[in-house]
Each structure stands twice: as C-alpha cells, then as structure tokens.
C-alpha cells in the first residue's frame, strides 16, 4: 500500500480553479486506486464543492482564495475552504422535494453527498470548510497495490 500523502493548493476564485481542481481530483483518485466510475463521482463532488467555494463563498472576489487539500491513504479526504461569508447547509432546501424539482439551483450539496461516503461542513472565522471523504473498498485496495 502507498504511504499516506497530503498535498495542498491555494487557488484563485475563478472558474479555471474549479476545472483545475476537478482534473487534479481525477488524477489523485486514480493514483489512490479508485475505479473509473467512482473517480467520476469524486471529481464531480469536488467540482461542486469548488463551485460552492468560488461562486457562493468567495463570489469570484480576486482578493479571496480557496484552499484545496488532498489526503490519500485508506481513504481520500478532500478539504475545500473558502473565505466567504459562510452559510448554513441545513437551510439549503431539499432538491428532491417535488416543489423544488424545477428549481435551477440547490443541487450541489446533494450531489456531494450522493458521491461521497461522508460530507462535513465547518464554519471558519471567515468562510466555510467542506470535507469530502471517500473510502477505498477492498477491490480498490487491490488495484492500489497492483499499481505500486
């Protein structure tokens, strides 16, 4: 098994950062041993977390940054921290409720929860930190060993 690794990035509040984070996630999840389908879901969760940070948190403010961290080992832990005004995730309406199905927004957190094993939100002094966790299954661990 590969040794646990941690890597951090400080990104600008731009759409390019969202795309870059998604690409990096796919690469890191691949190296960690996740299969293609699972990687796609993880990359989408990170994309949605980054959109949350860049668009809703930092509101594209050039003075504000997003801290993105990946930790790999038996699980992949991704943290995304913005410098925005913060929000209460419980107040986001359920996008699957019939009255909300035709709303144009509000599906990001739901998608993160769909594709990850665990999603946590933490209020920072300034901003919000989202932690996304995906655990490797036994067959993924085999793939990880095979690639090392």
């Amino acid at each position: 098994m590969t040794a646990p690794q941690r890597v951090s990035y400080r990104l600008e509040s731009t759409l390019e950062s969202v795309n870059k984070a998604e690409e990096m996630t796919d690469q890191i999840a691949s190296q960690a041993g996740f299969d293609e389908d699972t990687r796609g879901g993880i990359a989408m969760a990170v994309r949605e977390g980054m959109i949350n940070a860049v668009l809703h948190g930092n509101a594209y403010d050039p003075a504000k940054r997003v801290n993105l961290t990946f930790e790999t080992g038996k699980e992949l832990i991704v943290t995304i921290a913005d410098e925005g005004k913060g929000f209460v995730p419980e107040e986001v309406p359920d996008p699957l409720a019939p009255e909300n199905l035709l709303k144009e927004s509000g599906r990001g957190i739901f998608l993160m929860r769909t594709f990850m094993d665990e999603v946590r939100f933490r209020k920072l002094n300034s901003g919000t930190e989202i932690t996304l966790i995906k655990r490797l299954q036994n067959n993924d661990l085999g793939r990880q060993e095979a690639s090392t």
Partner: protein
Amino acid sequence: MSMKASTRQVDGVTIVDLSGRITLGEGSVVLRDTVKDLLGKGQKKILLNLGDVSYIDSSGIGELVSAFTSVRNQGGELKLLHLTKKVHDLLQITKLYTVFDVKDDEAAAIGAFSK
C-alpha cells in the same frame, strides 16, 4: 472543455445538437443563449440532442431545467434525445428523469411533438 450547439429543422421541430460539457460557465451560457434565441424566433418545439454531451454538473442541470420551464411557459415543448449513461444517471439521481420527456430515437421524438 467547451461546448458547441448547432441547430437544424425537421418537420417543424428544431433539433439542437449539443456536444461537449454543460457546466458552470461557457457550456451553460451556450445552452441558455441557444434556447433564448430559438424562443425569440418563435421556435417552440425543441429537441435537445445530448448524444455528444459527455458531462453535466449542477449548473448544467439547472440550465436544462431553466430551458424546460422557459419553453413550457411560452406554450412550447422541450424534449431530450440520446442521453449518455452519465447524463442519464445524473437525471435519475436528481429525480428529473421523469420530469423531462426523454427519447432514444430521433424520428420517434419528432413524432411525439404535438402537431
């Protein structure tokens, strides 16, 4: 990363062939502008061909919903054609699969529009 949209007319239905990614930014804007332009010209029977759309994020889903409601609010119809597995799964997960009228065959889809 970008998205392309081209339109063609078949039996009074406007087919929009989309390719690329419908995501926050350019992809969503292309879809929004295309549908807005068609509605402005009075073309209210719209079939979105998503066969070459590889990926949609929450913003893209929002744009599809917006297109659907805009067309419907103007008395028109919008249907979806040729969903890739990824897009199909995403619409299932978000419970939108049954909201949209989704078709697998172009001729059948055109025939399904009201005359």
